[in-house]
């Protein structure tokens, strides 16, 4: 029988639901996850319905598109206006920078292309003499690919606009925010495939909270939640691997080596949160000539102020849910987005709007 690696059968769903109910904490218990794909899976499968009333499950800064600073988008647009071909992942296309989005810049005549992989961007560079720039957005799952391409003798007309980020630092930073009240973390699946479960040990000394890595199938998520609640019941607080078929303690050494060779850790800004030390990447000096920021003279527009009432910063830090924002579904909709949480396809607000979020069904 061909394994499908799809886990959604309803009988096991009921069994895990029962397990979760048995473990239901009497007090409010906030679980935070940091992965847009987790939020997508939770909402699209209607999994919050399986949770006891006391358990809240919120998305933190898990949408790499949502947390890309407006300045990075402005830089990408400026580079495209300077005449380069800008290659980007599809979900960045509609996110507004300070003045407009990549989509609007494309309508204005800029050569902006959607790619499914950085490999496609470098291939585009090989077919032309024009400058081709890859907008390198994404967490640790996506960073090794940019590194691999830069190590593979890219043509001189190719460069990258680096906007990669590291998730564990953001997770630690969230715990230090006032009112965070995070009782447990559901750690991201494929980021963990790369960085390993040991990457989450860092905050356990100061914040004793269960941290369980979860996969993306509906049953994977219910399983990880059950493990979290079991730790809570037992009074333990450790990093637990709820996705062992895809995640190892030490992660993926080949991928980590690629990152290590090309990038060094840097302090970067997260849209809606601010600067977080050690939470991003920059190119090592011997790869500097592939840095798009160095190749183009760019005049950036003034960073625009946040719209009053917009609660993206609170949503991104898991201190509010989309329905807490006064603009949600009133002024702010996927067609008329105000903040990044609504535009990024993996943003909590966008997902809740499109799939019914936590409206009780």
């Amino acid at each position, binding site marked *: 029988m061909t394994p499908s690696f799809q886990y*959604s*059968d*309803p009988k096991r*769903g*009921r069994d895990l*639901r029962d397990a979760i109910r048995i473990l239901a904490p009497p007090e409010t218990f906030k679980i935070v996850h940091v*992965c*847009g*794909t987790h939020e997508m899976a939770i*909402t*699209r*499968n*209607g*999994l*919050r*319905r*399986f949770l006891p009333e006391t358990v809240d499950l919120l998305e933190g800064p898990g949408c*790499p*598109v949502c947390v890309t600073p407006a300045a990075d988008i402005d830089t990408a647009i400026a580079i495209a206006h300077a005449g380069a071909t800008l290659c980007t*992942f*599809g*979900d960045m*296309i*509609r996110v507004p920078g300070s003045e407009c989005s990549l989509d609007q810049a494309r309508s204005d005549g800029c050569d902006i*292309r*959607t*790619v*499914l992989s950085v490999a*496609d961007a470098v291939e585009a560079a090989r077919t032309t003499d024009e400058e081709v720039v890859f907008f390198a*957005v*994404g967490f640790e*799952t*996506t960073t090794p690919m940019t590194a691999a391409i830069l190590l593979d003798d890219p043509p001189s007309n190719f460069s990258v606009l680096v906007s990669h980020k590291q998730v564990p630092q953001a997770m630690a930073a969230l715990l230090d925010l006032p009112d965070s009240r995070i009782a447990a973390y559901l750690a991201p699946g*494929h980021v963990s495939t790369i960085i390993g479960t040991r990457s989450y040990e860092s905050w356990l000394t100061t914040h004793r909270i269960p941290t369980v890595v979860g996969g993306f199938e*509906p*049953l994977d998520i*219910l399983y990880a939640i059950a493990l979290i609640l079991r730790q809570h019941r037992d009074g333990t607080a450790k990093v637990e691997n709820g996705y062992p078929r895809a995640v190892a303690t030490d992660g993926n050494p080949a991928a980590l080596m690629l990152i290590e060779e090309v990038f060094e850790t840097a302090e970067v800004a997260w849209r809606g949160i601010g600067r977080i030390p050690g939470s991003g990447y920059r190119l090592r000096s011997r790869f500097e000539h592939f840095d798009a920021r160095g190749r183009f003279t760019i005049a950036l527009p003034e960073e625009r102020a946040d719209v009053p009432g917009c609660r993206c910063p609170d949503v991104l830090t898991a201190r509010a849910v989309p329905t807490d924002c006064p603009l949600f579904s009133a002024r702010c909709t*996927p*067609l008329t987005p105000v903040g990044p949480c609504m535009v990024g*396809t*993996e943003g909590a607000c966008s997902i809740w*709007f*499109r*799939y*019914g979020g936590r*409206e009780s*069904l």
Partner: protein
Amino acid sequence: MSDERITSLHGAGGELMGELLAKIVLPRFAHRSSGRIDLAALDDGATVDVPRSGDLVLTTDSHVVKPIFFPGGDIGTLAAAGTINDLAVMGARPLVLTLAAVIEEGFLIRDLERILDSFASVLEEVGATVACGDTKVMPPGDVDGIVLNTTGLGVAAHAISDTRMELGDRVILTGSIGDHGMALLAARAEFHLKTTLESDVAPLWPMIEPALEVGGIRAMKDPTRGGLAAALNEMARKATVTLEIDESSIPILDPVVGLSEILGISPLEVANEGKAVLIVSPGSADAILKALRKHPLGTRAAIVGTVTDEYPGRVILGTEVGGRRFLDMPLGDPVPRIC
């Protein structure tokens, strides 16, 4: 002949255009007549013989699909089937179509012939004909390749809308969902994907006609742009009911599942060009299903849901694992996601 291209003279109404019509249009359509003054007469208009009773149904569409030639069909197949299907889901037998083309100067005539062949072959399947048409040629760059516009005239014993439904009615899909939209996405060169998945473009009338004869069909819709999600939401809103859908009953082909994983796009939000959604009375559901399944286009037909009043105007999906969530109206063209 093989590399000949359309020039501005072909749209000018003169000698060259007459020649073009005589050579490539009339031979394909003139054999079936619309009425006393038909296409072959190349008059300013045409007469149409219509039955004395029933509802006359009219529909119109413009077609701009890219690429023009795609796996499973082309713009000609799409134009003909699309119009026939709009008539079919109103319960109308297609009688005649019009065909207007706006063509970019430089368009290959052999491509035009391929498109006309496709159009003609779809019409053959349903016994309809082209009553009249129009040709315009635009300077290079003023139109992208070719744009087609078709108007279809059909007759229904009693036209069926997309809004009549009652609590307890069942929702039937005539086949697998997402094929056309996903096949076209997969065909985009920049994605480097190889699949045998083809568009499902096909005329629905031959499958729907016997289903109509069973009786009990209350409403119908074809889930084209915006996919099944858009069609269901439109129906739920107009009728102010809830459509409660069981996710695991929706037939979806394996390659569509694969493409949806790769691209991060839901099969429920992309176009279908050979499928229909039917709302039927509970007592007739099984018989209608049987009638649909007898036809090659309907082998995967399935009952997928029920009309309720829990959340008027909304569509609810019972998910495979046992959860529930809203299935909302999609917004804009789906874009592939990173993660």
